[in-house]
């Protein structure tokens, strides 16, 4: 258990991590027609899926201390995202019949320039079907997604643990972990939609130019989660001291 004030800071940090993680997870709605690089769904939806898996995985080790909770959340989330990427690529390879290729990199508009995959060095130009902005998740976007999921899962687990340790003194029933879970999910959902405004529904992760507008997400999520954290802190202090009850 941690001190309520530290827990408040943990909620703020968790909220910011959740917001920033969305920038790293490659996602695009037109990916469902194999018309753009990225996992075929909205960025905020996908990060919600990954983050909530992280909270689910973190819940198993809630009694084993903060560090384990955070790491379990992070790797649980990364597992979900990488399995999704693998299966999305299987679908693309054997269902659609096309290799994964990054559209932004192929047209030389990626963060680091050039038309090659940064990690594997594979040439991207010429592999995309004409008229599309790439398809599937090439290795560099998969790695970027993995990083994003690690952050998102860690952020979700941070909020979860912080809310748990703040509400435990106030209400001592066995279901307090459920309350912490739903509040953590709520904080996650609030913060994961804000970056979607910045991304306009499509990103290729950290190799997309949109990563440069991350400071806007950072500030927005910082302010929003600070307000949420202060409210949770105030309410829990009131409930513990039984001013009103």
């Amino acid at each position: 258990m941690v001190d309520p004030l530290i827990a408040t800071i943990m909620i703020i940090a968790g909220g910011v991590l959740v917001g920033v993680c969305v920038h790293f997870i490659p996602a695009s709605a037109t990916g469902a027609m194999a018309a753009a690089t990225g996992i075929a769904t909205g960025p905020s939806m996908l990060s919600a899926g990954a983050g909530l898996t992280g909270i689910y995985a973190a819940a198993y080790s809630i009694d084993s201390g903060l560090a384990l909770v955070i790491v379990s959340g992070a790797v649980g989330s990364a597992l979900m995202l990488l399995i999704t990427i693998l299966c999305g690529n299987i679908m693309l390879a054997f269902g659609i019949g096309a290799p994964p290729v990054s559209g932004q990199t192929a047209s030389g508009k990626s963060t680091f320039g050039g038309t090659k995959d940064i990690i594997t060095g594979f040439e991207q130009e010429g592999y995309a079907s004409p008229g599309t902005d790439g398809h599937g998740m090439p290795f560099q976007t998969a790695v970027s997604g993995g990083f994003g999921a690690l952050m998102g899962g860690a952020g979700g687990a941070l909020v979860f643990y912080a809310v748990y340790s703040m509400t435990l003194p106030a209400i001592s029933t066995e279901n307090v972990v459920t309350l912490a879970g739903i509040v953590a999910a709520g904080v996650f959902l609030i913060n994961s939609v804000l970056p979607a405004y910045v991304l306009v529904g499509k990103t290729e992760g950290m190799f997309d130019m949109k990563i440069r507008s991350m400071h806007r997400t950072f500030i927005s999520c910082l302010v929003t989660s600070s307000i949420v954290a202060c409210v949770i802190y105030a309410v829990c202090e009131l409930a513990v001291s039984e001013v009103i009850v």
Partner: protein
Amino acid sequence: MAAISLLLGTALAGFLAFLAGVFEDSESNAGSASNPNSQVQLAPQIGNRHRYFNKAISGEPPANALWATTAATIAYLLTAHFGGDAFSVLVASIIGAAASTLLLCAYGVLSHISRIASMKNFEQTLYWDSLLTPLPLDAAFGFLTALMLTLLAFSAHSLLGNPFSVPLLAFFFGITIGAIGSSTGDIYYGAERLYQHYIFGSGIPISVQGDIDVKGEYGYRNSVDTPYFTMRFGGLVTGLAFGILIFLDAWSRLFTFAGVWTSVIVVSVLVLIILIFIYLLEVYTRKRYGRYTED
């Protein structure tokens, strides 16, 4: 005893999750929900008047979370009435899933009619049979999804020992399965099934989007044919993704070689192995298909 329940829970959870994934993908394809829905929505605007079931409860994650959470909440409340043994859990889950299926039908019918009503300018007619024929199929898949997720939530809570309550687990599973279903299975529906008259081996250019197949093997295509096609590949891969996720996550907790940190170490190794698989798959596809060629 604890070890046996963990083993049993792992096997059961993986199996239930696999089935849930298959059914979820078929449900969303039978109703043309989620991202490929934009194509069905776009079709009348470029003159393809269709007979698809346009369910349009878009955002698969919240929709599936609703079916699963409703089913699980009702089942959770009913088990308190019934007792709490395995049989009562099963009966309660079936009742809960049936109730959430009614909700699914109501939302599906409302959105199909509303969407067609908003298509007046494009002369799209509301055909009752193209709504009422796929509806039972869609409802059946929705029922099975909700049932599997409810049973999965019960087994994760009681056999695997997750501290969350059953409805919250069902909520998490619903969001996750929606995210996985819309990002794996839907590619097959959106890029292959809806566009079968375009050649195999390429993505769908943005310029031709909306030009979907409206005619099928015989006569006009309706949404009943869709799961028949997509279940052979798209549904199975979706099931594989969700099944593997739940199975590996539970499986990593079976070992005890490094104390409480065991599962984290196991999952980290698994993550690296999956990354290697992604790399190998990319190498294979680049060798097999090569650059895009016009033919």
